[in-house]
């Protein structure tokens, strides 16, 4: 198919439908309204169900029901709404139900603002709701990836029986770029013998998250943790540019990675050896590759639209082999390439202490 110019949010919605999404439940919130808008328009015409829920709490529990009944299902929201969904997300992870949850992140805390942010990183990758569980977290860096990673997200969700979060932000959601949808996209076909579709000629299926026997619940959580370890082995994704000879490695995902790339190009013109490391999966985090890249002669610079959340995972990954610095903006402010460049220059000249 020829490339079409689309907003990130619309590309994501279109990709979801092509990936076989059969139901969407959501509640309005800026800056993700194009997603439910697109779904409301298209999904019913293309064999699916769109329903505006009474709240994000209801929406995520509708997702639980539909996923438990075996459908490919999605919800989207932005930060305050994602906070409301957390109990439901914990249930979905516990019941091992596949679904895609989109967070087009805006800035907090509180009602915060509607400008883009990356302040929900901890919530997305460390759990967010109660209990020991993980989401698979995908971080698109372009409109094309808003589409590609959403389609991938449905496959990963089914493959691992695990909720997948697309961690985007207001810029990626709103900006327009050319996007290509493959003509022959084939969603992964996964049997769901556990789904509650009606117990015809079989024993009843139960979708449940309760287990009051401690010994048995411990085993269940151990099994979940084992699954997360296998996901770490098999599903890590990232992108590198110019890391071969880099003395300073910028680390950023999503919008921050785009800004870091501009700064890197300018720094290279000045003769500073800078590379870019862009995690595409935030869980699992590409920690092994970062560790390999680290060393006493290298410096890392995390670029974030938050107080510095991903930087903690970078530090854990490099295990003290290299110093890790932070360049950040808050409150919906976006770092400029010049700000990042200024930090790069300081690091290159050795003017910054950790």
């Amino acid at each position, binding site marked *: 198919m020829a490339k079409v110019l689309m907003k990130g949010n619309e590309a994501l919605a279109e990709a979801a439908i092509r990936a076989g999404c059969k139901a969407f439940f959501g509640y309005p919130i800026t800056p993700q309204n194009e997603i439910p808008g697109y779904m409301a328009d298209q999904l019913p015409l293309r064999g699916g169900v769109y329903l505006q829920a009474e709240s994000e*709490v*209801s929406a995520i*529990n509708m997702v639980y*029901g539909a996923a438990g*009944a075996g459908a490919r299902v999605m919800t989207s929201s932005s930060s305050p709404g994602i906070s409301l969904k957390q109990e*439901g997300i914990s249930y979905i992870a516990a019941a091992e139900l596949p679904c895609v949850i989109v967070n087009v992140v805006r800035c907090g805390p509180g009602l915060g603002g509607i400008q883009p942010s990356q302040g929900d990183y901890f919530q997305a990758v460390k759990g967010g709701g109660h209990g020991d569980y993980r989401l698979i977290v995908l971080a698109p860096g372009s409109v094309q990836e808003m589409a590609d990673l959403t389609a991938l997200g449905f496959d990963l969700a089914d493959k691992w029986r695990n909720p997948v979060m697309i961690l985007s932000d207001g810029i990626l959601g709103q900006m327009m770029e050319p996007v290509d949808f493959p003509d022959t996209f084939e969603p992964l076909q996964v049997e769901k013998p556990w789904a509650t579709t009606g117990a015809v000629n079989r024993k009843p299926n*139960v979708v*449940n998250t*309760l287990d009051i026997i401690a010994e048995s619940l411990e085993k269940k959580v151990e099994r979940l943790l084992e699954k997360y370890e296998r996901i770490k082995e098999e599903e890590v994704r990232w992108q590198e540019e110019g890391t071969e000879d880099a003395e300073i490695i910028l680390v950023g995902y999503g919008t921050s990675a785009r800004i870091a790339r501009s700064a890197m190009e300018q720094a290279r013109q000045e003769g500073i050896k800078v590379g870019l490391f862009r995690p595409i999966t935030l869980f699992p985090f590409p920690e092994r590759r970062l560790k390999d890249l680290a060393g006493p002669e290298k410096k890392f610079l995390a670029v974030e639209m938050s107080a510095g959340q991903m930087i903690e995972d970078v530090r854990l990954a490099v295990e003290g082999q290299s110093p890790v610095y932070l360049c950040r903006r808050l409150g919906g402010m976006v770092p400029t390439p010049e700000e990042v460049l200024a930090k790069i220059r300081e690091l290159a000249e050795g003017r910054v202490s950790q």
Partner: protein
Amino acid sequence: MKTVFQKPEAMTDAQLHYCPGCTHGIIHRLVAEAIDALGIREQTIGIASVGCSVFAYDYFNCDMQQAAHGRAPAVATGIKRVLPEDRIVFTYQGDGDLASIGMAEIVHAAARGENITVIFINNAIYGMTSGQMAPTTLIGQVTATSPRGRSASETGHPIRICELLATLEGPAYLARVSSHTPRHILQAGRAIKKAFEMQQQKKGFALVEVLSTCSVNWGMTPVNAMKWLEENMIPYYPLGVYKDITAEEDE
């Protein structure tokens, strides 16, 4: 030999964990009998809510999901909307679950005319968490969190769910029944069956509120609890059909 007692097919062999004098078990049986009578066990998906009846997923012999506290109508909506039309979806919810934390979900499922069946157990108390005040607790009723009796000036008045939902266009069938005498139990069974039939006929949202006892948390013998229900709950929660669109059609 004549069979005088048989377990409904829609119930499993699991032993019920309910306290003596609790009517959850009786109401489970009524639901299972309705499912059997309509021959819909293999196409039914039930939703157990958080409360004493959470283990209903072990007791009903059909596909089951266990929902977060209050969210059963949302879970039911998700299931109902993605499965083939002949699938029957019911929720089984307590009064804390449905009338407090889950008020938004039940009102909106009803307003949408969601084609599901809701079995609503009103025992005027939070059973599972050991007897706190519920939104349905009567004025003057002593609970763990209204130790001097529920006072209207501090906590307002108990909520009448059938009456409240009857103001909406969405519901097809709303009835309040009781479980304190054999005669009432028979009536309750008929109402529950009707609420499933409404769904089969795609009439829309159906809810049966069943007045129920919690003798342990009420601090009464089972017999006194039945009496207390009759003398205190029924005057405030009158039994009857609050909405039935098929009755209107029949007229």
